[in-house]
């Protein structure tokens, strides 16, 4: 039995590794995706005042602290039964749009980009953000670097700090936005809109027009036909902060729509005897193991899932980009509906479509009169008026749920956090297995390029293991399905 380790998986957030066992004929026997980390935020929350949760749970992830803060903020609004005034709603969403635009661009250029913006045979040492920036040339490189700095400057202006902002209050915000800040924010928002459009052009030119990458986007290796989950408004449009959670099946038919507070009725967290990691799945469909297809409750979240769920996007440039994505890669049903896209590598394109939406929405919000309204706090009762609440947002990586219970003094008695990467855990495991199985067979030369292809299957999900390991400490065992040429399962091995 030969073992192949990819340790650590690089250009993702947090520590993880892949272990693949080959049998004597060189075929994949088992593949594992292992996360050797545990920080136990559920424990750290207990006994803390609930109003401290935005600041505390922010530390789950330094790449997406804003998502944890907003999920916690929404839970606080409900616990204290307070309605944020218009200025607060605007500030929160504006900050969130700057964050999503920046976060998506960071993943695109720094983490996943080296896989598709550079030549296929580039040396591993060159396969970095720095290699990408050299390839893009000085002008675009400067824009990429400035994009992050400028958006995080906006986050600092609004939230007090660039990483781990501090301004969230139940129903409120700790400091107002001035007209001077608005002017600076508008300039950043305008550049964000243009930058996002240029990123989409760049994607077409460097990825879609590249035969290797065009082929990968059509490759079954990277396609797992799962359910998709995301947040939409009453017109079925993409939403990042407020709305209902919607689930579509692998063919694109809506199967359920529900407020996040009902998550426990729809999502079940599976514990398998062979793994200690919870595997969220759809209760109504059920668990049939690590499998895709309509009979398996495995679902995905994140940019591609959101664009599979949403029927349209509220801003014009993003809507055009959304249509282009579906026209190029999607299929239509007989009654004229868009079918979901299942190739995981398409999530990079979906990420850019969302970046465009976040930029356009940011520009709209930067012009609203209420942004600079100084009514930013409300009267908040001394202790929570209900004992539990669920806050939910669409983090860049997918649906994020914070569920808190408190005692009568408002001290946390339990916290349950379902983060995007946990929801995607089963799907990531499926992707790793599929890539290992398809790319490795008897006699395959196992080189850096091949191992990187397997990592690409992981990176497509943009996993944040920092987020996922707020509790998890287990290794994920996988199921290997050996298929015949037509795709018929010949053997199923479960471990």
């Amino acid at each position, binding site marked *: *039995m030969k073992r192949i*380790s990819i340790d*650590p998986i*690089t*250009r993702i957030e947090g*520590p993880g590794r892949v272990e693949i*066992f080959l049998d004597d004929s060189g075929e994949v*026997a088992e593949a*594992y995706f292992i996360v*050797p*980390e*545990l*920080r*136990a935020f*559920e*424990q750290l929350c*207990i*006994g*803390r005042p609930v*109003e*401290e949760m935005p*600041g505390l749970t922010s*530390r789950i*992830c*330094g*790449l997406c*602290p804003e998502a944890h803060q907003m999920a916690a903020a929404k839970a606080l609004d409900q616990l204290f039964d307070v309605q944020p005034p218009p200025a607060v709603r605007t500030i929160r969403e504006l900050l969130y749009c700057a964050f999503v635009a920046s976060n998506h661009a*960071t993943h695109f250029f720094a*983490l996943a980009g080296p896989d598709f913006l550079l030549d296929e045979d580039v040396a*591993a*040492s060159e396969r*970095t953000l*720095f290699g990408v920036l050299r390839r893009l040339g000085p002008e675009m490189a400067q824009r990429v*670097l400035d994009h*992050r*700095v400028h958006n995080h400057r906006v986050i*600092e202006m609004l939230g*007090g*700090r660039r*990483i*781990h902002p*501090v*301004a969230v*209050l*139940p*129903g409120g915000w700790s*400091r107002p936005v001035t007209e001077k800040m608005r002017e600076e924010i508008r300039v950043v928002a305008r550049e964000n809109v243009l930058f996002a459009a240029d990123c989409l052009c760049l994607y077409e030119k460097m990825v879609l027009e590249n035969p290797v990458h065009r082929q990968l986007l059509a490759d079954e290796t990277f396609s797992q036909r799962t359910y998709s989950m995301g947040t939409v408004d009453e017109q079925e449009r993409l939403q990042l902060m407020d709305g209902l959670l919607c689930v579509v099946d692998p063919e694109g038919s809506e199967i359920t729509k529900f407020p996040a507070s009902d998550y426990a009725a729809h999502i079940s*967290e599976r*514990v398998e*005897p062979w793994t*200690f990691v919870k595997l969220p799945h759809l209760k109504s469909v059920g668990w049939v193991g690590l499998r895709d297809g309509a009979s398996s409750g495995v679902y995905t979240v994140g940019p591609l899932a959101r664009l599979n769920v949403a029927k349209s996007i509220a801003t014009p440039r993003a809507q055009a980009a959304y249509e282009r994505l579906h026209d190029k890669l999607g299929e239509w049903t007989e009654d004229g509906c868009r079918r979901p896209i299942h190739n995981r590598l398409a999530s990079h394109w979906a990420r850019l479509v969302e970046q465009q939406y976040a930029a356009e929405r940011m520009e709209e919000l930067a012009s609203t009169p209420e942004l600079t309204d100084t009514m930013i706090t409300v009267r908040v009762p001394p202790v929570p008026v209900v004992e539990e609440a669920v806050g939910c947002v669409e983090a860049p990586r997918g649906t994020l749920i914070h569920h808190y219970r408190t005692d009568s003094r408002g*001290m946390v008695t339990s916290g*349950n956090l379902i983060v995007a990467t946990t929801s995607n855990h089963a799907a990531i495991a499926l992707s790793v297995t599929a890539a290992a199985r398809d790319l490795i067979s008897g006699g395959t030369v196992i080189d850096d390029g091949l191992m990187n292809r397997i990592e690409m299957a992981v990176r497509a999900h943009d996993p944040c293991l*920092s987020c996922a*390991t707020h*509790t998890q*400490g*287990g*290794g994920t065992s996988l199921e290997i399905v050996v298929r015949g040429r037509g795709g018929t399962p010949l053997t199923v091995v479960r*471990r």
Partner: protein
Amino acid sequence: MEERPRLAVYWASGCGGCEAVFLDLGDRLLEIAQNYEISFFPLLCDTKLHSVEGFHDGAVDFTLITGAVRTTHDVAMVRTLRRVSKRLIAMGACSQLGSVVGLGNLTSAAEIMHTVYDGSDRSGKMPRNVTLTASGSLELGGITEWVRPLDSIVPVDYAIPGCPPEADRLWEVLQLLRTSLVGDVELPGPGAVLGARDGTVCEECPLPQPEGPTRSFFRMHQVAPSQELCLLDQGLICSGPATRGGCGALCPAAGAGCRGCYGGPPGIYDQGARMMAALAALAGTGDGEAAETKEEQLRKHVEAEVSTLVDPVGTLYRYSFPVSLLARLGQEEDES
């Protein structure tokens, strides 16, 4: 091309925020890539562990470790990185002080495992250090009994405080480290704190200094913060007086109390105790007679003041519990 100093950046059990600071450097990041050879940096580069294990002793000039040491995997990684590094630097509050992960030390490792896994249908299973599969063994490791600061696991040369450190401070440190190699400047002795100021957060704070007396605290949602008064004078807990400066007092300037992520100021070994002393002093101010002559009354003021703090440990030791005298005593008893 002249040989560049080698730099490594590795996360133990952290959030990735310290790594994100590199991205906030903007085009200064390109200078770092020019000035340093990056030996290992999992967020940005594809170097794998087997390469690092093959480095000779001291091959890397500077290694920054972020994140808390919470797992046996973390311990093994930091030992490997210590061996291959000339200078090892604790970057960020987790690595320097234990940070919020260190609040886990309020409970035992076993309790943590139960809190995390008992809520689920776990069928009697818990994560195991090693799992045997049909094909071979999978090493996962476990959690350590306590979260400990990096310098109690391996010798540490310097610390860069903050959760996360401010980008400008990180930049200054990286410039200092590089120029030290060409002989322009000399690095301080081991144990020094880099990328921070010697004073407190209060000294950098744009809000007025505290006047007192502060005799009770409100919870943060009960007061609309004003920019005209010190937060302590508004009855909002702020650890500025017991926290090392360098951040620019960003949190109080935004109306949010400091929670102490830069650790205690120079010479202070227990940040929470230092803050308690500051609170006691504030309770007595503005009432000279009480402070001087009526000890009993002062004691009552301080007691009343401190009793309105709802979560003293989680607030005053938010970032530094594992290095506090209290926690260390508890651990020593446990180990003896």
